[in-house]
């Protein structure tokens, strides 16, 4: 469902031009569980942002479910992010002034879903992730693991096809990190395509497919 062909992306840092992605070719099927690994600066996050339509390639083509993404306008890409793609970040990126429930509700507000329907789905999802009793709490009143679960609930509330996780356990202790990974893997088993950037080789081993990146190229894919 995801098809990248000869994707290149360069950044200008100071006077230098740094290639973050060099001629990356990648096919990911529906329902796959992919771990993207590699040293810092190897282009893992850039690859993830590219797939998540937060960044545009300088050259190459990107097909999502057979549709060409590179020719879409900004608002068309935004609509796809709204409906087909979910993001989970290392630093959660919850809106600090909103309660857990309000954070989860946010994508549905942007999509223009009615408030009754919103409330029902937020309740169900928080309950399913075991944080139903924390719905009224603000992020600073939640533990790291709880915050990440709220963030995952927000990422999947629109029932996307692809879930992109950038170091989802990077800021968590071992126990809560494990719980978060269990949730992500459960979601993957129920059909969502999971692409996860990680430093942790333990986590990499659990994935069905491991991609190792070095210097903007895919070094190994197994």
């Amino acid at each position, binding site marked *: 469902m995801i098809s990248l062909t000869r994707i290149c992306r360069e950044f200008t840092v100071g006077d230098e031009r740094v290639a973050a992605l060099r001629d990356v070719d990648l096919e990911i099927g529906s329902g796959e569980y992919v771990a993207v690994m590699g040293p810092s600066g190897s282009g893992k996050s850039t690859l993830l*942002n590219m797939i*998540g339509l*937060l*960044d545009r390639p300088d050259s190459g083509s990107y097909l999502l479910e057979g549709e060409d993404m590179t020719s879409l306008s*900004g*608002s068309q890409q*935004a*609509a*796809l*992010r*709204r*409906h087909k793609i979910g*993001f989970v*970040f290392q*630093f959660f*990126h919850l*809106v*600090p*002034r*909103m309660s857990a429930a*309000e954070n989860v509700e*946010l*994508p549905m*507000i*942007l*999509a*223009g879903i009615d*408030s009754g329907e919103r409330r029902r789905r937020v309740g169900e999802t928080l309950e399913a992730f075991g944080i139903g009793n924390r719905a009224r709490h603000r992020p600073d009143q939640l533990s790291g693991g709880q915050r990440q679960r709220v963030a995952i609930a*927000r*990422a999947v509330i*629109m029932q996307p096809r692809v879930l992109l996780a950038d170091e989802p356990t990077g800021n968590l202790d071992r126990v809560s990190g494990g719980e978060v990974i269990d949730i992500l893997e459960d979601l993957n088993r129920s059909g969502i395509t999971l692409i996860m950037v990680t430093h942790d080789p333990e986590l990499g081993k659990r994935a069905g497919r491991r991609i190792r990146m070095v210097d903007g190229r895919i070094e190994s894919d197994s």
Partner: protein
Amino acid sequence: MHLRDVISFGIRASFGYPARTLLMLLAMAISVGSVVILSSLGEGARQYVLGQFSSLGTNLIIILPGRSETVGGPPPLLGVTPRDLTLEDALALTRSSAIRHVAPIVVGAAPVSAGVRERETSVLGSTPALFPIRQLEMARGRFLPEGDPSRAAAVCVLGYEIKTELFGTSPAVGETVRIGDRRFRVIGVLADKGESVGMDMGDIVIVPVAAAQALFNTSSLFRIMVEASGRDAIERAKTTIAAIIRERHDGEDDITIITQDAILATFDKIFVALTLTVAGIAAISLAVAGILIMNVMLIAVSQRRSEVGLLKAIGAPGGRIMALFLAESAILSLIGAAQGLILAAAGTWLIGRIFPDFPLSMPLWALAAAVGVALTTGLVFGVLPARRAARLDPVQSLSRR
């Protein structure tokens, strides 16, 4: 995204950062408040002056002897020496159907005494027609009697103040006062109407016009006050008066005719200009508030970079983010404007307490304008920050914690 959700998002965001919100509200409230208070003051001053002139009487025409005009030749000291206006001139005017009342007026100062008390005061000679023209009211007794205006009856009507000074609280009607070297019987006392432009009707003694002429040893009139029979009759009355006097003065146009409307219109213009000037000065404070809003919103955008990045990541297009930030500054401006109106109401109440005589009216247009301008200011000065938010690069905004 529903409009309701945009608004509630804006309100929540405002309450999420109370210090910033308070600052913006304060700036908006002060500037809106000052716009409303200052234009209320200007409007109040206008109405005060208009009210004063209206209390002279309605549909009033004043005839002065002499003519102010620009003519060639050496400037005359006080206009070419005019023919005096006489009592007969005044009586001749009553012929016109455009004229309802004619009051000839003679004014002078004379000592007025009752018993041992004496006061130097204005003495005004006129006819009973003065009563309706100046819209006078009696406190006691009656006004000058009808009858031949050329008969110098020895009766007088006292203003409220002079009555109190001469007689204290004891009744004056029926008593005798001495004006100059003549004795007059008091037949009435005017009601206390306060001061009105041109003449203090409290500190005055009114006598029949012929009596005043005898008292001041003159045969001319100070001026003639005429009440036209209606607002639309004023122009007709003016031409008629000019024609009648010209005929009586051997074809010379040697009088000046002033209408109350002309005076009112002039003052009205002056005060509208004044109000607009003052409101314009206050509007500068609105602009300052606008710049503060821009500043604070710019800070808000950089404070909320990661929130903006997140909104983009979960599918908000740039236009939506711009709308959200604009809605936020519009909401803050409106709340600020509402508080400014409360401030203005409190301010005008306070001024009303300190200066009870001054008619303070908060003009409706000022309220509407203040709120409208506040909203416009919020939106105009909110555009730059909102655009900056909409253009943030999501990857960079999310890369920091």
